[in-house]
């Protein structure tokens, strides 16, 4: 849309073809770019192309030629009121106020909460927000800016840049983040983590099943009593839960994200219902395995949060549950189905249990995975021979290779290779020159995968798709 605005401003008339369910988003984006009356029309999601074009061709031409209406010739200033105090009244009245909904037309056709994630919130009175602000040394009226250089989806972002909360590119102060932390049910000692997460701009993704997950690494996890053990992904922790929820409330309020308007995930995601934040169990790392903080260039005694905004877009969440006792039999004496599949029957471990996950990992999607494994599983990999996490990432990368013919049977690469134009990076050759049996990696590079050690004692590993793609890591300590 910014490009369309640039063209219209330059005197080049345009007409945009979208899909019907995207109209709300087109209107909002158009207003955000200064041209609320942009011309657009829908193509069909289902009609064959030639039939569709029969229907819309004359409207396309009309978009370029029909004289402007009075409205389309208008110019002005869009500046909605933005009071600091949103409501004044009793607590009961405030609860009702913040629970207001708005009817959202197709493709939602239902009321959605304006200020909340659909669940009741803790009313952000001035006193409660003041109390929350004791959790940080930053001033309430300080704008949220990047505290260090970081990577974003569309390139590098520089220290000091104001954070533009997505999708509306709004900005925020420390006080606004504290307001949301109150609403989410956080305590003041959680605020530095929430402020660190805020630096991400709280993107919500689009299209399929994008979920947002935050991972804390470093001393703060223990300080604020995050659950790193059994059930750490929920429910029950009054720390993990509210911090994860703060992400979603920030995306709704600071970013203006509304399903069906500018948050177009077809099914939404249960992970975003309440939000997800968990912590690495640093004490459970095998010797020589770095924590997430150290892997990201920080020190072992520094606290960070990794913000994954696109979990699920390329595959979702998998929880490989070995049968009760099945994993133990596999490792202890080489018996059971896992041992039979990996051809180690009768041979005690340690065995590389990742091989059991392998057929399903890239069955329907490409890219890195984040593997959340309990300490025992991490130790087995270490004892098997992976003395560092990087060695596991390298193994996953090499295991992901498959023939070009099979790779071309995937959906996303049509888009990511721009229609198979350009150079395939391992060969240095044009995609179209490669033979069907040339092997290419399904994971872009080894470091796209990520391991986080956490969880209880039952032998299980949960995989989140997306890995380190679009998962920047931010310092929490700078916000103390």
């Amino acid at each position: 849309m910014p490009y369309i605005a640039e063209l219209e401003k330059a005197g080049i008339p345009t007409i945009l073809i979208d899909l019907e369910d995207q109209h709300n988003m087109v209107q909002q984006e158009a207003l955000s770019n200064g041209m609320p009356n942009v011309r657009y029309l829908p193509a069909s999601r289902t009609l064959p192309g030639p039939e569709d074009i029969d229907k819309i061709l004359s409207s396309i031409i009309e978009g370029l030629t029909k004289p402007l209406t009075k409205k389309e010739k208008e110019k002005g200033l869009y500046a909605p009121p933005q009071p600091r105090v949103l409501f004044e009244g009793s607590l009961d009245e405030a609860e009702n106020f913040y629970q207001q909904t708005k009817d959202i037309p197709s493709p939602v056709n239902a009321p959605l909460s304006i200020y909340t994630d659909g669940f009741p919130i803790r009313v952000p009175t001035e006193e409660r927000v003041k109390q929350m602000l004791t959790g940080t040394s930053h001033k309430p009226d300080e704008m949220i800016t990047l505290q260090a250089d970081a990577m974003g989806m569309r390139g590098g972002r520089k220290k000091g840049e104001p954070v533009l909360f997505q999708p509306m590119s709004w900005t925020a102060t420390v006080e606004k983040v504290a307001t949301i932390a109150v609403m989410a049910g956080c305590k003041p000692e959680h605020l530095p983590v929430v402020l660190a997460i805020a630096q991400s701009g709280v993107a919500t993704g689009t299209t399929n099943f994008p979920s947002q997950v935050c991972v804390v690494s470093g001393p703060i996890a223990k300080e604020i009593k995050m659950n790193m053990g059994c059930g750490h992904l929920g429910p029950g922790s009054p720390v993990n839960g509210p911090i994860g929820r703060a992400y979603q409330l920030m995306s709704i309020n600071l970013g203006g994200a509304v399903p069906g308007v500018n948050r177009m995930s077809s099914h939404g995601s249960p992970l975003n219902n309440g939000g997800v934040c968990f912590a690495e169990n640093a004490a459970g790392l095998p010797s020589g395995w770095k924590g997430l903080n150290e892997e990201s260039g920080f020190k072992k005694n520094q606290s960070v949060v990794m913000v994954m905004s696109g979990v699920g877009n390329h595959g979702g969440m998998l929880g490989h549950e070995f049968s009760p006792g099945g994993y133990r039999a596999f490792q202890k004496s080489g018996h059971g189905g896992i041992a039979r599949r990996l051809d180690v029957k009768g041979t005690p471990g340690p065995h590389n249990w990742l091989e059991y996950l392998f057929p399903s990992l890239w069955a329907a999607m490409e890219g890195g995975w984040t593997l959340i494994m309990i300490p025992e599983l991490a130790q087995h990999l270490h004892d098997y021979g992976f003395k560092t996490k990087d060695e596991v990432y390298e193994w996953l990368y090499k295991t992901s290779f498959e023939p070009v013919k099979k790779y071309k049977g995937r959906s996303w690469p049509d888009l990511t290779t721009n229609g198979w134009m350009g150079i395939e990076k391992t060969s240095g050759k044009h995609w179209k020159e490669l033979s069907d049996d040339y092997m290419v990696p399904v994971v872009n590079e080894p470091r796209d995968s990520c391991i986080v050690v956490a969880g209880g004692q039952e032998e299980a590993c949960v995989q989140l798709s997306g890995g380190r793609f679009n998962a920047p890591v931010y310092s929490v300590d700078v916000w103390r």
Partner: protein
Amino acid sequence: MATRETFKCLNPTGIQKPIETFPLARRLDAIDGKTINLNITGEPDITIALEKRLKNDYPDVNWTTKKTYGVDPVRLTDEEMKTTDGLIMGVCW
């Protein structure tokens, strides 16, 4: 008489900077004899058919094309901006 306790409750909404809105560009009297750019962003089922029909039904238009399978459009060059009279973009999602 008991008075009802009231509270000031803060606004969690992000800060929207004022937006200057502007009029659309003047439309064309006709497209024949003009240079119109078809800026394709994915959806080949629709856009391949569209390109064919445009060239077939409007042969007196100088059609130029820019194409990507992705969502970010391929932009006109500075020179093309001077000579392009109109632009059709699609399909955007």
